């Protein structure tokens, strides 16, 4: 998928875009419906997200994020704009120094990281995995997730903390 997106970025390749559309648009629609959007609105926004991907493809940096991650952020922001009618306060990359100059291996490192991350997600204890998944798909504050499950907010927060520590460790990031 990342190779397809590079072809869109570098050559405005419509066939590559169509292939990306076929893979991602139905998943973006699915994501938005899980968060409560009616199917027709979810479809409109999925189309908008893909159009936005086409227009912003030149900004895609495959040493920083995969196509899936990038589209997740695009869909998330569109949802905030369209459904919550708010702006998303977004970081301006010019505000801080890049962590390190991307080198030739950065793309490979990132791809390996994503594989490790997905594997690590599958090995999380079920209660930790559930809190992560609900955070992405429930559109509820953690206080509400806690009260619906009849567990203290502190328990939800500690599950999150433990899950994040595990995932960071899986990626070799101790901080």
């Amino acid at each position, binding site marked *: 998928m990342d190779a397809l997106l590079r072809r869109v970025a570098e050559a405005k390749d419509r066939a590559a875009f169509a292939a990306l559309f076929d893979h991602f648009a139905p998943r973006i629609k699915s994501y938005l419906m899980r968060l409560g959007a009616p199917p027709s609105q979810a479809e409109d926004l999925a189309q908008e997200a893909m159009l936005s991907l086409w227009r912003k493809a030149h900004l895609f940096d495959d040493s920083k994020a995969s196509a*899936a991650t990038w589209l997740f*952020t695009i869909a998330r922001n569109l949802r905030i704009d369209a459904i919550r009618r*708010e702006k998303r306060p977004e*970081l301006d990359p010019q505000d801080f120094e890049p962590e390190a100059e991307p080198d030739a291996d950065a793309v490979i490192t990132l791809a390996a990281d994503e594989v490790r*991350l*997905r594997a690590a997600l599958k090995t999380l204890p079920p209660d930790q995995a559930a809190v992560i998944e609900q955070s992405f798909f429930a559109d509820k504050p*953690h206080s509400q997730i806690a009260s619906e499950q009849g567990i203290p907010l502190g328990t939800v927060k500690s599950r999150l903390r433990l899950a*994040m520590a595990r995932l*960071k460790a899986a990626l070799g990031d101790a*901080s």
Partner: protein
Amino acid sequence: MNIRHHPDESLLLAYAVGASDEATGLIIATHMVFCAQCRRSVALMEKIGGGLLDTLPAAPLSAAARDAVLARLDEPAPAPARLPPSRDGTPGVLRSYLGGDLSDVRWRRMGPSLAYKPLFKRDGISAKLLRGAPGTEVGHHTHRGQEFTLVLSGGFSDITGNYDPGDLQIADGNLRHSPIADPGEDCINLAVTTAPLKFENLIQKIAGPLFGF
């Protein structure tokens, strides 16, 4: 930069998944301008989001959906709104709410040494800037809701510790404090409150609501 006071995972994740209200999102994003550690955490959370998105069962679109988008690829893209470059290093995410730089803010005075600038309020959650001259004491107060305070310049101290640029204080009903601006330069904070503060001093009790605190 050495940041000692961070948002917890719950706040970072709410920002990463897009569940934060706008004011809380603004203060988290502005903290991240100062804090590489929290930027890395949010980037990791977004990768989790990408992984989850990629493995969701597909919800098929209508037959014409793809062609409709392909037909629009040649439309001119709307130009992104851009402010002119900052002259004083004000973070971009904040400038979009100020309409300019921190040094251009038109402050509203609230006594001899304290000033504020309301940014916006939605669903009872408000974002504002606060500026205290060195040594200014805010006055003892407790909280009906949550109060987030992010230091932008200068610093302040209270019973929980010392806060420097980039540090985020999270105060709730359990904390009674009276922050004092550190000596040296003005302390400028971004503050987000989910409910009015409860001041103990009689004049502040009366004046607080007038100023929107």
